C-alpha cells in the first residue's frame, strides 16, 4: 500500500481528468479490486499493466459504468461521480473500445458511429448529414477514405477498430479506454494505430491503454500503472525508461495463495503417450511439436491470442489441422474427429465451462456421464442408477459440494462446476487429459482442490496437457513447460528451471517491435 501512495503523492497537476482512490469491487468469493489508485491526465497515454486476474478488466468495467465500485471514489473532471450504466459514462465522455469490438456488422459505418444517437429531424434520421459527420470524424482519425455507407462487415479488423474510435469521438469522448487494441492488428496496422493515438492525445484526449506487450507500452505510453491482485503496486512509472525487470517484478509474486501439492519424484515411465508433430493451423499456430508421457503434466504458458487454446482444441480434434500429426500411444488420430480422440482415451476440459462443457439445467450426474453414458448403458438403455452411483463415486473423490449429484449443475459454484467437467473424464478410460484454463473463475479454496486432483490423476498415470494464463499455475503444477508466443513454441524446459519472471519476459517481450530498452 505504500507504493501507490508514493505514486499519488508525486502528482498533483490540475490537468488530471480521472482520479481513482481506494476503489474496491468484490464479487462472491473474489475481491476483484482491492484498493486501486489510478490517475490519468489529459493528453497522456496511460498504460495499465498486470497479469491475468490482476483486476484490469474489472477496472475497465468500473470506468465504463458496467460495474459500480463498492467503496472508494472516482473523480472525473474534478468532481466525484458514479455511473449508473454504460450510457452515462459515455455521455460523461468516457468511451471504451473493447477487444471484441461491439459493432453491428450489418449496419453501415455511419450507422455504427452514430448508433443510439442518430442525428434526427422530425423523427427521421438525417442520413446525408450523418454520413458527412462520419467522414469528418474519420478524417480526424486520418482515415477519411473509409466510405461511411459501407457495411461494417466488409471492413478489416483495423478498419473496424477505426470505426469504434470514431464512435467514441462522436460522443465527444475526453477519455478513451482501449483494451488490448493491438491484439487484432497486423504489424503495420499497429504503427497506424499509434499515429492515431498520438493525434488524439495532441487534441487533449486522454487514453488508457491496456496491453501485454511491453514494447508497445514503451513506444506509445507516457506513464504506467501496474496492478496486482486488485491493488495498485506501482503508479506513475515513466513508460519509456522503467526497466523491464522492474515492471515484471511489480506484476509477479502474487499474494493469491497457490497451494500446490508437493511435486512427486521424476516418474520412471517415460514412454510417449501423446506425440504431436509439426501441427499447424493458419493464423493460429505454426509447426508445434510436443509430447506428453504417462503421468506427466505438461504446461503451456502464453498470452491470450498466442494460440494455446486453438492448439489444444486441434489436438483434441475439435479443429482440423492444416498440417502435422497427433499420435496417441502409437496410434495416429484422424484429424477433426473428437469421437476418435475420446475413443483413443483423450478428454478435455475446455476454456469456457458453461458454453462448451456443461448442460446447465441437467443434473450433475448427467453432466458427469455425458461422455460415458453409452458405456454405462445396456443395449442402448441408460441406467440412472448406475450413472448416479458412478457419479457419486467421482463426486466423493473430488469432494464435490454440494455432493448430491441429482441437483442441476447450474446451482454449483464455478469451482465445483469445473470439478464436474474434470470428473467427467475420470469415469471413462481417460489416459490423456487436456485442461484449458482449469481454474478460471474458481475461488481460492477450490483451486487448491483442483490442483490436488490434477496431481493425483498424474500420479495414477494420466498424462495432462495444461494451458493457463496464470504463469505461477503452470510453473507450480507442470513437470515440463512450453512457452508459446504468437503461435510458436519458443521455449521448452522443466518447470524447475524456469521462474515467473523469466516466463513473463518470454511471453511479453517485444512481440511486434524489436530494439527495446532493457
Amino acid at each position, binding site marked *: 500500500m505504500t507504493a501507490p501512495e508514493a505514486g499519488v503523492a508525486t502528482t498533483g497537476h490540475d490537468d488530471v481528468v480521472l482520479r481513482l482512490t481506494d476503489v474496491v469491487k468484490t464479487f462472491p468469493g473474489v475481491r476483484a479490486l482491492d484498493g486501486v489508485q489510478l490517475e490519468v491526465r489529459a493528453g497522456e497515454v496511460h498504460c495499465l499493466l498486470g497479469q491475468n486476474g490482476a483486476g484490469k478488466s474489472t477496472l475497465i468495467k468500473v470506468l465504463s459504468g458496467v460495474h459500480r465500485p463498492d467503496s472508494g471514489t472516482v473523480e472525473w473532471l474534478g468532481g466525484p461521480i458514479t455511473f449508473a450504466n454504460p450510457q452515462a459514462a459515455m455521455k460523461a465522455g468516457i468511451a471504451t473500445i473493447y477487444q471484441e469490438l461491439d459493432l453491428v456488422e450489418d449496419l453501415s459505418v455511419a450507422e455504427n458511429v452514430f448508433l443510439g444517437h442518430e442525428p434526427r429531424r422530425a423523427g427521421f434520421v438525417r442520413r446525408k448529414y450523418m454520413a458527412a459527420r462520419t467522414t469528418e470524424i474519420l478524417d480526424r482519425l486520418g482515415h477519411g477514405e473509409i466510405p461511411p455507407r459501407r457495411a461494417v462487415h466488409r471492413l478489416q479488423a483495423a478498419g473496424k477498430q477505426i470505426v469504434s474510435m470514431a464512435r467514441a469521438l462522436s460522443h465527444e469522448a475526453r477519455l478513451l479506454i482501449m483494451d488490448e487494441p493491438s491484439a487484432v492488428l497486423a504489424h503495420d496496422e499497429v504503427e497506424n494505430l499509434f499515429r492515431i493515438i498520438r493525434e488524439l492525445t495532441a487534441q487533449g484526449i486522454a487514453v488508457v491503454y491496456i496491453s501485454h506487450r511491453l514494447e508497445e507500452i514503451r513506444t506509445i505510453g507516457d506513464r504506467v500503472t501496474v496492478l496486482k491482485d486488485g491493488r495498485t503496486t506501482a503508479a506513475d512509472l515513466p513508460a519509456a525508461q522503467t526497466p523491464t525487470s522492474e515492471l515484471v517484478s511489480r506484476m509477479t509474486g502474487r499474494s493469491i495463495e497457490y497451494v500446490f501439492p508437493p511435486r512427486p519424484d521424476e516418474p520412471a515411465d517415460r514412454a510417449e503417450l501423446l506425440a504431436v508433430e509439426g501441427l499447424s493451423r493458419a493464423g493460429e499456430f505454426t509447426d508445434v511439436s510436443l509430447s506428453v508421457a504417462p503421468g506427466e503434466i505438461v504446461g503451456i504458458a502464453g498470452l491470450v491470442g498466442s494460440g494455446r487454446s486453438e492448439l489444444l482444441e486441434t489436438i483434441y480434434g475439435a479443429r482440423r489441422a492444416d498440417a502435422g500429426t497427433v499420435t496417441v500411444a502409437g496410434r495416429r488420430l484422424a484429424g477433426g474427429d473428437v469421437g476418435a480422440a475420446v475413443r483413443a482415451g483423450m478428454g478435455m476440459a475446455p476454456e469456457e465451462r458453461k458454453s462448451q462443457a456443461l448442460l446447465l439445467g441437467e443434473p450433475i450426474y448427467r453432466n458427469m456421464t455425458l461422455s460415458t453414458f453409452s458405456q454405462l448403458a445396456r443395449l442402448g438403455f441408460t441406467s440412472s442408477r448406475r450413472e448416479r452411483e458412478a457419479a457419486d463415486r467421482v463426486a466423493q473423490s473430488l469432494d464435490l459440494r454440494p455432493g448430491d449429484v*441429482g441437483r442441476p449443475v447450474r446451482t454449483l459454484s464455478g469451482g465445483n462446476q469445473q470439478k464436474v467437467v474434470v470428473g467427467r473424464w475420470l469415469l471413462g478410460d481417460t489416459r490423456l487429459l487436456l485442461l484449458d484454463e482449469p481454474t478460471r473463475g474458481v475461488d481460492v479454496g477450490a483451486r487448491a482442490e483442483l490442483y490436488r486432483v490434477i496431481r493425483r490423476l498424474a500420479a495414477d498415470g494420466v498424462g495432462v496437457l495444461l494451458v493457463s494464463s496464470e504463469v505461477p499455475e503452470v510453473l507450480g503444477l507442470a513437470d515440463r513447460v512450453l512457452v508459446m508466443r504468437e503461435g510458436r513454441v519458443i521455449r521448452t524446459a522443466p518447470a524447475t528451471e524456469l521462474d515467473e519472471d523469466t516466463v513473463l519476459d518470454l511471453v511479453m517481450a517485444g512481440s511486434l517491435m524489436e530494439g527495446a530498452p532493457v
Partner: protein
Amino acid sequence: MTLSDGTGTAAAGLPAQSPPVDPAQTAAGHPRPDDLKGRRASRGGEAGESVKRNLVLVAVLVALIAIGAVTQPQLYSNSTWVWNNILSILQLASVIGVVTVGMTFVIIGGGIDLSVGAIVALAGVWATTVATQSYGAGGMVFTAITVAVAVGLINGLLISYGKLVPFIATLAMLVAARGLAAEISDKQTQMSESSLINGIAADKLLGIPLLVYILAVVAAVGWVLLNRTTFGRRTVAVGGNVEAARLAGINVKRHTMLLYGLSGLCCGIAAIMLTSQGTSAQAAMANLYELDAIAAAIIGGTLLSGGRGTIVGSLLGVIIFATITNLFAINGLSTEAQNMVKGGIIIAAVLVQQFRFKAVSQFLSRNKT
C-alpha cells in the same frame, strides 16, 4: 455498500472452508439425513419442474372439460355419451399426436421440422398409387414409412452435413414434398381400396378406436426412447448445448440426421392413419400439421431453443387442442373463432413458460449470493 459486507466476509471466510474441515463435517458427521435431503431436493429440481408444468396442463384440460359440461349439460348427463365424447377427442388427437411425438424429439434436439405435414401428404399419396396398392396393405404401409423416413433423412442430411438452417431446409422440403405429392397424384384424390388399411380408423378394440392405440404405442415408445435410452440422452445433450455434446465425443451430425429421420418415421405412421381415416389420400392433406405439432409441443413445455421437453407434455398439448376443437364442435361454433382461441392459448402458454423460467432463474441467482 451492502454487497461489500456480505461478500467481504465470504472472501475472508474462504480459507476456513478449505477441504480438511468441511468434508469431515458433511461426510463423517451425519451422512444419512444429508443424503436423504439431497434425494428429495433433486426430485424437486428439474424433473419436478416438468411434472408441475404437466399438472398445470392437466388442470387446463379439466377446466376445458368443465366448460363443456356447463355449456352442454345434456351431453354430460349420460355416461356413455361422456365416454364417447372422450373417445372422439382422443381419436381427433391421434394423428397429430403421432406427428407431435416426432416433432418433440426434433425440437428438444435443437431443431424444427416444418415439413411434417408435407411428408404426411407425400407418404399418403405414394402409398395409395395404383402401383403401390397392388402390393396390398403391407406394401402400402412399407411404402408410406420408407418414403417418410427417406424424406426425413434428407432433411437431416441437409441440416447436419449441408449446414443448412433447420427452418430453411424443412421449409424448402415442405414446398418440394407437397409439389411431388401433387405430381404423383396428378392433383386427384386417390381412394384406398385396402379394407385392412381402411379398417384401422374404423375398427375398435375393447371399445377403443385402433387409432388411439397407435398413438398410445407411439407415445410410449417415444417416452422410453427419450427418457431411458442413449438416443434420448444424446437428443437432450445436442439440443441443450451442442458444443458441450460435441466436445464430450458425441457424434452431433449423425444424431441430428437421425432426429429428422425419426420425425419422418412418425409422419409415415401418421400418413397411414390419416389415409385410413379418409379412406383416401391427396396432396393437400395434413395441411398445417407442422403448426399444430409445434404449437402442441410448445404448450407442452418443450423449449423452442432445445434441450428440454417431455413426451407427456406434448401429448397433453395435443389433447388440449383436440378438446378445444371438440368444445367448439359440440357448441356448434365456427372454426374461425376456434382458431383465434387456439392462437391465444399458444401465446398464453409461452408467456407462462417465460415467466416461470424467469422466476426460477431469479430464485437461483438469489440463492447463490
